[in-house]
């Protein structure tokens, strides 16, 4: 029983990490309707920024958030304005190629600038553990989990209650009508991509205390983020959160009770099952929204 609870706890915390990365991807999916294959690289860039600020100036990772967030917003703006906007009207294949191209450029730029070694941040709380009833909870992972929850909560509030959020939702619902109503869609797209990049940045900052930064980190995490988003329901924030946690739990439980080597197998098998049985995802907005990001 002890092992079960410990495993479940580890799985839920891992799921929090997945959800954290997926939230930003979901936003850009739902609003800008683009499959951003470079999302993981944005997380990687944020991790490197956090690492270098710790290495060169001694900033605690959580403190560097205040610098990373605005920088990532600008990066997102630039990405939208100069790379995505020109191809907004073209075919889905084109959009996929372009974002994959961006991801490759960022990966190799990181490799060229900073080398291939794994960069780790070590702080006083890196291996701190909270022990509750015999169950060990890693502190940095708990903070990342809490951060993920907070982020989803804030985003939800923002989308539902603020005017900007309502505008973004209206663009997501029907872009052409929004344009007819006089909404400057391209400006809001830039804001959405900027926000998505900020979310990726937050994920990077929260991940740095317990994950090593290296140029290809993005490639790994993007794939998992996609699975989370598809399983949770594309464009659905809460879906991404629940989907992420579910995946984390399933992955870790598989590792303990079946075999560690089969963890990835189970993830992808689940992905296939969901796509076959309920393609719009567990929390998807109903049949017909499966092709978000491709239209």
């Amino acid at each position: 029983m002890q092992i079960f609870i410990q495993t479940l706890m580890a799985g839920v915390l891992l799921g929090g990490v997945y959800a954290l990365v997926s939230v930003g991807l979901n936003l850009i999916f739902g609003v800008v309707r683009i499959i951003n294959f470079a999302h993981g690289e944005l997380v990687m860039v944020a991790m490197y920024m956090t690492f270098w600020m710790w290495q060169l100036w001694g900033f605690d990772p959580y403190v560097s958030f205040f610098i990373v967030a605005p920088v990532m917003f600008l990066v997102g703006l630039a990405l939208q304005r100069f790379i995505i906007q020109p191809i907004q009207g073209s075919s889905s294949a084109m959009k996929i190629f372009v974002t994959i191209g961006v991801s490759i450029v960022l990966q190799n730029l990181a490799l060229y600038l900073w080398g291939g070694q794994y960069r780790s941040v070590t702080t006083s709380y890196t291996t701190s553990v909270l022990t509750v009833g015999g169950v060990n909870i890693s502190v940095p992972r708990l903070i990342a989990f809490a951060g993920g929850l907070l982020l989803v909560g804030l985003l939800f509030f923002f989308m539902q209650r603020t005017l900007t959020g309502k505008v973004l939702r209206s663009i997501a619902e029907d872009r052409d009508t929004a344009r007819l109503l006089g909404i400057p869609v391209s400006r809001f797209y830039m804001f959405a991509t900027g926000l998505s990049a900020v979310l990726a940045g937050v994920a990077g900052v929260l991940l740095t205390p317990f994950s090593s930064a290296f140029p290809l980190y993005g490639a790994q995490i993007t794939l998992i983020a996609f699975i989370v988003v598809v399983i949770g329901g594309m464009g659905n924030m809460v879906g991404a959160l629940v989907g992420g946690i579910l995946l984390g739990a399933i992955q870790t439980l598989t590792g303990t009770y079946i075999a560690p080597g089969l963890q990835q197998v189970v993830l992808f098998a689940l992905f296939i099952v969901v796509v076959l049985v309920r393609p719009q995802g567990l929390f998807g907005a109903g049949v017909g929204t499966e092709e978000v990001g491709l239209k």
Partner: protein
Amino acid sequence: MATRYHPTTAGRGRRFVRFGALTASLALIVASAACGGAGPNGAVSGGEKPIRIGALYPTTGSLALLGEESWRGTAIAVKLRNAAGGINGRKIEVVRANVPDVNAAVAEARRLTSKEGLDFAIGTYSSSLALAASEVFARGGGTYVELGAISAEFNNRGYKSVWRTNPTATSFAEQEVSFISKYVAGALGKDVSKLKVVVVHEDSAYGSSVARSVQEKAAAAGITNVSYAPYSATSTDLSSVVLGLRSSKPDVVIAVSYASDAILLARQMKENGVVVPAFIGTGGGHTLAGFGEALGADANYVFDVDFTQYAVNKTATPGLDEFVAAYKKEYGGSPLSGHSLANFMGAQTVFDILEKTGGDTSAKAFGAAAASFKVKEGTTPTGWGVNFDKTGQNTAASAYVMQWRDGVLETVWPESVATMKPVLAK
């Protein structure tokens, strides 16, 4: 009323941005090509024809970290040998090829053999790349000397002109098993057959091949209680593995990990209070300076079996200090791992053999010279000797056992190369 077509502002803007992006990309490509072309290539003297050999290493992509490190060892060997007059008065000219994956390895090997007309090459760090590139050279009647990849298969394909100067994965496994039976068993006061061993390994070719070698050697040494825990190197969480260790309480863990999973495993073991008396890494992530830096005091007492590292008994490794000094001068920092040293020693060995053939790089000449080329252990910068067997493998090279002690990877076994005595973790 007829409307005249004129491009909208947006259209003009879009075309400008596209043009701007195109120009910027081209400029970036040209700039990076100019930058990428730099690097020690070996001087070409105006007089005598240089000796041209190919050097295939992955310097971009996922293997770039240690691929670049491996290349640096060779680069320094070339630089030093050319400064000392080259081989028989002829300069060594290295024709570099970047091989980030197997397809590139085959393509580049083909380019070097046909377009560049080379019949001799060295490389490669990664076993899968080495297998691919050497195949092209060997089939075309050329020679390929591997300086750093460890997969046992390399010398077992029946090619006569394929050689390797460094120890193999089998040798790593042998050394681990030997260390366990000759030291760990005694230190724990247990009989070899009573030791509980768990092999925690990443599940790709690297981890699985070492695990297989360990399985064979352990059985032969009488270590019967061995279990296996494979995991994916890209995992963000290794709780399942760690919880498994916590409940089984092994005496020995043999780990085969890459860089980030080595750190992750150690951290999660610390978080869950799992202490193993003898935790033995097998090269890879456990050798990297990054492992010691990331874990600090928590890395203490972790053993590691690998190529020769830098805290070693210098009387057994003449030339090591000179290599480190040359590395610092060229690259402005200490070597990242023993890969550069291994490639340095291997390249030097190749040049010494070519000295014997009078600069003849043909397979026949090199083969004859290499077969009779013998060097005693304890006389090269890695401490390895040179004695190629019939398959082209250097049997006088072996891995050593190191241990992390206060941030330094000290050599602890065998005694002839040790700087400290080994200690079990408590």
